[in-house]
């Protein structure tokens, strides 16, 4: 038989520990990405030109360079300037920086999609521009970009496999270890793919449900 189910079942506990690490990396990366993304979006929309330019440069650099290289820069490169981060943290920082650029663009689009009349009405009531952002624009923009945030989670679950390059013991790294020992690459990577799929599918379905519940009133 092409697929060795016994091997898969036997190595499952070992792989699932890796899957948990993948989730941890994804979770913190996206969280960092959402925070950075919000800052980048507001920066790009701000009237302070230098800030807007810096934010735009950041976005374009992150989107125009390979993620593996970004991970290498953080893990292998930063020690040169005295910043030593352990592998897992390096991975989270690199993926988070990358995610921040993509989410920044998504948030910017979400903010701009909110009808200008909302801002006018809120300003006319005497709210300060920051309050208008916080209480009126961002809550509405957030609901609109929720599907995109969901996609970002799904993308990040998959891209977290790249931190195996810097020896973070996540799912891909661990299945490579077993495959290298048993030479059964096919079984191991098929099993790995299935585990990733279960994770991404669960996330995308959960977000679809959440979105349905939040859409009230839009």
């Amino acid at each position, binding site marked *: 038989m092409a697929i060795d189910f016994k091997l898969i079942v036997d190595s499952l506990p070992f792989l699932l520990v890796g899957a948990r690490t993948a989730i941890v990396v994804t979770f913190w990366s996206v969280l960092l990405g959402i925070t950075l993304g919000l800052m980048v979006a507001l920066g790009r929309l701000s009237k302070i030109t230098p800030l807007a330019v810096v934010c735009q440069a950041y976005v374009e650099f992150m989107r125009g360079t390979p993620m593996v290289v970004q991970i290498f820069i953080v893990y292998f490169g930063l020690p040169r300037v005295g910043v030593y981060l352990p592998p897992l943290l390096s991975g989270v920082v690199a993926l988070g920086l990358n995610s921040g650029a993509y989410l920044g663009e998504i948030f910017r689009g979400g903010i701009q999609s909110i009808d200008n009349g909302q801002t*006018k*009405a809120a*300003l*006319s*009531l*005497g*709210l300060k521009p920051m309050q208008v952002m916080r209480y009126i624009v961002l809550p*509405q923009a957030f*609901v609109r970009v929720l599907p995109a945030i969901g996609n970002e989670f799904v993308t990040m679950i998959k891209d977290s496999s790249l931190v195996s390059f810097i020896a973070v013991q996540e799912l891909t790294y661990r299945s490579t270890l077993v495959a290298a020992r048993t030479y059964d690459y096919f079984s191991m990577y098929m099993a790995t793919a299935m585990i990733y799929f279960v994770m991404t599918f669960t996330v995308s379905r959960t977000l679809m449900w959440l979105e349905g519940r939040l859409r009230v009133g*839009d």
Partner: protein
Amino acid sequence: MISLKNIYKSFGSNQVLKGVSADVAIGEVVVLVGASGSGKSTLLRCINLLEEPDSGQIIIEGVVVTAKGVAKHEVRRETGMVFQQFNLFPHLTVLQNITLAPIRVRNTPKAEAEALALELLHKVNLEEKSEAYPYQLSGGQQQRVAIARALAMKPKVMLFDEATSALDPAMTSEVLSVMRQLVAEGMTMVVVTHEMGFAREVSDKILFMHDGAIIEQGTPAELLQNPQHEVTKAFLSKVL
């Protein structure tokens, strides 16, 4: 109470206000009429500084609000505005729409803000809708909530920008009756409208705008019965 002195405003190369001057006294109801594109909305938005005039002065109760260093948000909380498109906040309930600004801007305690909101909803005849979301309301109901929302800040003046233009006749009359009530209470109002019957009935003064300037003004009797300018005559013959 409000004095506009020689207001100019351009968008790019498009000069929209060409030296507008006008006065609104306390308790006065001033109606602004004119063809679409003549600059009525822009002028109204200058009063609460949603648009910044290029030159000229706006004086509200003795304060030159166009002066450098005047906090715009402090001017705006004294000037309520009602928009053609209602612009209720769709993610908030009716009650939250009304209480947001008193709570966040005036630091009114929540319970007090809610009590006031319910009072205002009673006034616009929508008490039972306090927990509804805007999408659950008709246009006329939304506009009445928008009026209540503006009133909750206890503004010194109310600005209405074609508040009934997006409404059918039945809903228009609901909104006009709320506006009439405000007039009766002595609210100072600047109203952009095409409802000439309403203008005749409630206004102290009608200003006719044409191409960025007020070319004629007077009491409803003067302006509607005896317009001087050809453009005013032509305009009135279309809307009366």
